[in-house]
Structure formats: structure tokens, C-alpha cells
């Protein structure tokens, strides 16, 4: 089965690439936009997994960076509309802008939160996310509570993002890039130091590693990727609202990571896909689908303690 394990990323990629023509052939184009949403949430969950799985930093405020990225795109589109590549509606400008905005926010939040550990870290990140949430609720200029509609999706030279299929492929490409980066980071010196800090911070510190700086860098990177996920989600539905950064969104992202497998490169994708598919499939049959989802979560806790992706791995 070793070959399967090595081939698995390529199989997943092939499935991802083949999904739109398959959906179109079956007359189920609806699944293309569902797959886009799964891809975006997988990106969000993967960025959180970098924090939780690699750095041992359990954040319950990750949606703040996701929502900030989404709002950066929406505000840029509303304030500087236009067709040029330097306009606010240009993906080449707005998406990196979203990442930078989220990274800066993560730098501030992270720098203060690094003073705390464990459960206290969970709560302080939650507090910052709530603050960001209420700031956006109060921004009447950008819709406040009701949110803000984008006139259209961002434009990319040579690609028509208005097409759901094209947009899906862009999401797929960015997700693949994120997963590749994740595996590279895990294997890198940076990733090893992070894991050393997670295992025993005092030991890593005494070996001479500036632990707080390493953790802060990981926090900023994860924030930037969450911002990109937010930028994509704003485009997917052409709509942003403070709900994107509500703590339940942070909680859902965290549940996706645990469900998929903490620290596993595939954990974020597996968690997001299973979570969303269960919701989609069960809600087609019964209004009471949350009971089913709840039972699945309990089953994973008791029968697959290392998450879904972890269950497919050999015990190390």
C-alpha cells in the first residue's frame, strides 16, 4: 500500500481537476460552487492547522483574519472600482492586499497573545476576534451588520472569474499551492523548530531558539493565508458580512482541523470536505442533519483519535 500513499496527492489532484467536467456531464453544476466553497474552507482550515498542528497554538480567533481578508477585497472593490490591474477590483491588487491586511492584524494580535499559553491563548485570540467582529459590525459605511455586496468578482488578466468553473480552478490551484507549502514547511528547519517549541518550549528556548519570534512568524503566515481564504470567499459569494469573523466561524474552522487531523498536511482539506459534505448530504434528507453531524464528530473522537487524515496514516 506504500505506492498508494505516495500516489494519494496526485489522485486527489486528478479528482479535483476532473470534478467540473464530471459535474457538468451529470447535470449537477451546483456541485462546482460547493466544491469551491469546500476549497476555500480547506484553505482556511489548512492555515489554522499550521498554527495548531505545527506550533501548538490553538487559536479561537482565526476567523478575524479570514473576515479581514474578505473585507479588504470588498472595500477595495467598492472604493476603487475599475478594470485596470491597479484598480480595487483587480485580483492582482486586491488579493495580495487582503493577505497583507490580515498579516498586519495577525502581527498585532499575535505579539500580544504570545504572552499567554494553552487555554489562555485560546481565550485571548477569541477576545481579539470579537473586537474585530464588533468593529466591522459598527462600520456603517460598509454595511455594518447587514454586510456588503460586491458588484462582481475580481478580475484576473486572461481568466474569467465570473465563470464558476474558472473560479473553482483558481481556488483549486491556490489550495494545492497551500498544501504544497504546508508539506514544505513541515519538513523545513522552521517547521522542525516549531515542533520542538510545541513539544517543549523551555527546552527549545534553552537551545537558543527565539521561541516567541518563531511562533509569531507562524502566526503571521497563518493569518495571511486565512486572509487569502477570506478574499476567495468574498469572491465566491460576491458578499461579505461580519458573520465571516463571528467566533462560531473560528470554532467551525477549529473543528474542521481536529476532524481532519491536527498537524497532518491533509487534515485541513479532509476536515473541511467531510464537514461540508456531511452537512450537504444529510440536509438533503433530513432537517435534523446537525444530529448526524454531531454523531459523526463523536464517532471520530472515539474511533479515529488522530482525525480522518490521521486514520489513513501508518502509526509512527
Amino acid at each position, binding site marked *: 500500500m506504500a505506492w498508494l500513499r505516495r500516489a494519494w496527492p496526485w489522485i486527489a489532484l486528478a479528482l479535483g481537476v476532473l470534478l467540473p467536467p464530471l459535474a457538468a456531464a451529470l447535470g449537477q453544476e451546483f456541485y462546482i460552487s460547493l466544491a469551491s466553497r469546500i476549497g476555500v474552507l480547506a484553505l482556511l482550515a489548512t492555515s489554522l492547522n499550521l498554527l495548531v498542528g505545527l506550533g501548538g497554538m490553538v487559536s479561537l480567533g482565526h476567523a478575524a483574519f479570514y473576515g479581514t481578508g474578505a473585507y479588504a477585497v470588498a472595500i477595495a472593490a467598492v472604493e476603487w472600482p475599475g478594470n485596470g490591474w491597479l484598480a480595487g477590483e483587480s485580483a492582482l491588487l486586491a488579493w495580495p492586499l487582503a493577505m497583507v491586511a490580515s498579516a498586519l492584524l495577525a502581527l498585532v494580535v499575535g505579539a500580544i497573545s504570545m504572552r499567554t499559553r494553552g487555554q489562555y491563548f485560546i481565550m485571548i485570540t477569541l477576545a481579539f476576534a470579537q473586537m474585530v467582529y464588533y468593529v466591522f459590525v459598527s462600520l456603517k459605511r460598509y454595511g455594518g451588520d447587514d454586510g456588503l455586496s460586491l458588484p462582481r468578482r475580481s478580475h484576473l488578466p486572461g481568466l474569467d472569474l465570473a465563470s464558476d468553473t474558472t473560479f473553482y480552478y483558481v481556488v483549486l490551484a491556490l489550495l494545492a499551492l497551500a498544501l504544497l507549502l504546508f508539506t514544505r514547511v513541515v519538513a523545513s528547519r522552521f517547521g522542525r523548530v516549531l515542533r520542538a517549541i510545541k513539544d517543549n518550549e523551555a527546552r527549545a528556548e534553552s537551545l537558543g531558539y527565539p521561541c516567541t519570534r518563531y511562533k509569531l512568524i507562524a502566526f503571521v503566515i497563518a493569518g495571511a493565508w486565512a486572509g487569502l481564504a477570506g478574499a476567495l470567499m468574498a469572491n465566491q459569494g460576491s458578499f461579505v458580512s461580519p458573520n465571516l469573523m463571528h467566533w462560531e466561524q473560528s470554532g467551525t474552522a477549529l473543528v474542521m482541523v481536529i*476532524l481532519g487531523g491536527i498537524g497532518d498536511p491533509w487534515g485541513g482539506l479532509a476536515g473541511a470536505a467531510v464537514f461540508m459534505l456531511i452537512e450537504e448530504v444529510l440536509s438533503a434528507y433530513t432537517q435534523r442533519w446537525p444530529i448526524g453531524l454531531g454523531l459523526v464528530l463523536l464517532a471520530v473522537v472515539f474511533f479515529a483519535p488522530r482525525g480522518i487524515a490521521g486514520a489513513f496514516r501508518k502509526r509512527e
Partner: protein
Amino acid sequence: MRPGAPLSVLYVVEQGLNGLQFGLMLFLLAAGLTLVFGIMDLINLAHGSLYMVGAYLAATLTQATGSFVLAVPLAIVATAAIGMVLETMLLRPLYKRDHMSQVLATFGVILIANEVTRAIWGVQPLSLNVPAAVSGSVELLPGLPYSAFRLFIIGVGLAVAAMLYVVVAHTRVGMLVRAGASNRAMATAMGTDIRRLFTLVFGCGAALCALAGALLGPLLAVQVGMGESILILAFVVVVIGGIGSIRGALVGALLVGTVDTFGRAFVPTALRAFLPPSFADAAGPPLAAISIYILMIAVLFWKPQGLFPARG
């Protein structure tokens, strides 16, 4: 306060009482949460669900029996029983697991509890009326009428806090609970049956949840999702106070209750005093809403273990 109304002493007193009342209810929720967290090291997200179940049971039983006074003890006993069953069947295997498994499992419990509640009681919020005996208002000071029901809540909250203090600080069971919170392994080694103790603590925590649900039911809406919004506040209280500390939970709850109430009552007006009105009106409400989070960040910045760390 109405915009432009003068800041009177009576109004400050009234808001102070509101803050005390809210803080005491938060304490009922946080007391159970902090012990569960402190002794068994269990992150129990489903704590808010017990509060919801307690409120629903109290509302239904009040309708069935026609008496709030009769319904509340029944709801408390029933919720405590549900809590103990939940603890024995589902949570006990989770103690040895890491926090993330506990988060996932108890998140699943929330989903199930909310949906079962919806299936039984429907999607419409239930109404729980203020009992007739305390439905009026009392003239506390000349010119300061205050809701009798809120006074009743303050009285019950103070009584429970005092009772908990006596039990935790001056009884054998309370000593075991404190021992368990400060060093579980040592308490077990000294022959304490932590397991049975914990089922008991969990049941008491559930009972306090039900009491808070029944008392807050007439003031807030009894609806699905009520548990999650207050759960966050309860966690804020626990973290400010220090995980595992009952005294910390009381101080934290009163701080959070007062800061939140005063923030909502005074921050918008105060801002208007020295900022342009348009800006003050925009910044006031969000600043009031985040006041408790600012409090928590400030506490954690200077005391990263909370105000009263239970673990030595």
C-alpha cells in the same frame, strides 16, 4: 440611557444593581465551568447546553404546574440528572484525552443538544413569565424604582455564592474539590475517589446552570443558541478569574457583569462628551460591546494565569 439624559446618581445605582445581577448569574454558570476545567482539565463546550436545557425545562414545567417556585427545583434536579448521565456516559472517557478531542466531542454534543431541543420544543422562543409575586417594582431609594424580580435574582445569586463559599472553604467535600483543582494526581494518590467526586461536581455545575437558565429566562429569550452566546461570557469569566478557582470565578463574574453593564450604559454618552457626535455615535456601541474583551486582554497581559491561579 436616553441620549442627552443627565448623569444622575440614581441611574448609576440602578446600573450598578443591573451589573451585580448579571454578574451573579454569570457566576452561577462560571462556577461549574471553572471546577470542571480545573479539576478534570476538561474543556466542556456543552456547558451552555445545560443552561439551555435548564431554561427550557423551567419554562415548560412552569406552564405545566402553573408555579414558578415549584418548577425551578424540578428543572434543577432534572438538569443535574441529565448532566450526570452526560458525564458518566460521554465525558468520562475524554478526561485522559487532549483538549482538542474534548473540543470536538463537546462541539458534537452542542449540535445534538440544539437539534433535539428544536425537535421537542420547535423553533419559536418559549416565553417564561416573571412570577406574579415579584413582577412589580420596589422603591429602593426615593425616585429609584427597581424591578422586584431583579432584586430576587440578586438575592438568590448572593445566597448561592455564600453557600458555595461555605461548602468549598469549610466542608470536607469542598476540601477534596480544592485539592483536586490544585493537584489532581496528588489528590488521587492521597486516596480521593476523584471519579465519583467529579460526577458530583458536574451534577452541581449542571444544577447551577439550570438555576441560571430559570432565573435569566424571564429576562432573556428562551431559545436555541442561548447557551453558546453566554458560554463565551462564562469562559471569559473563568479565564479572568483563573481556571479552577471559585473565588476567581466570583470576582471575574462580578467584574465582567459590571464592566459590561456600565460599558453599555455609559460609554456612548461618555464618548459624546469629548468627541464629535457623529464619531461618538459610531464608536460607542462597538466599544461598549468589546469592553469585557478589553478587560480580559488587560488581565491576561498583566496576569497571564488569571487573577487567582488555582494551580500552585
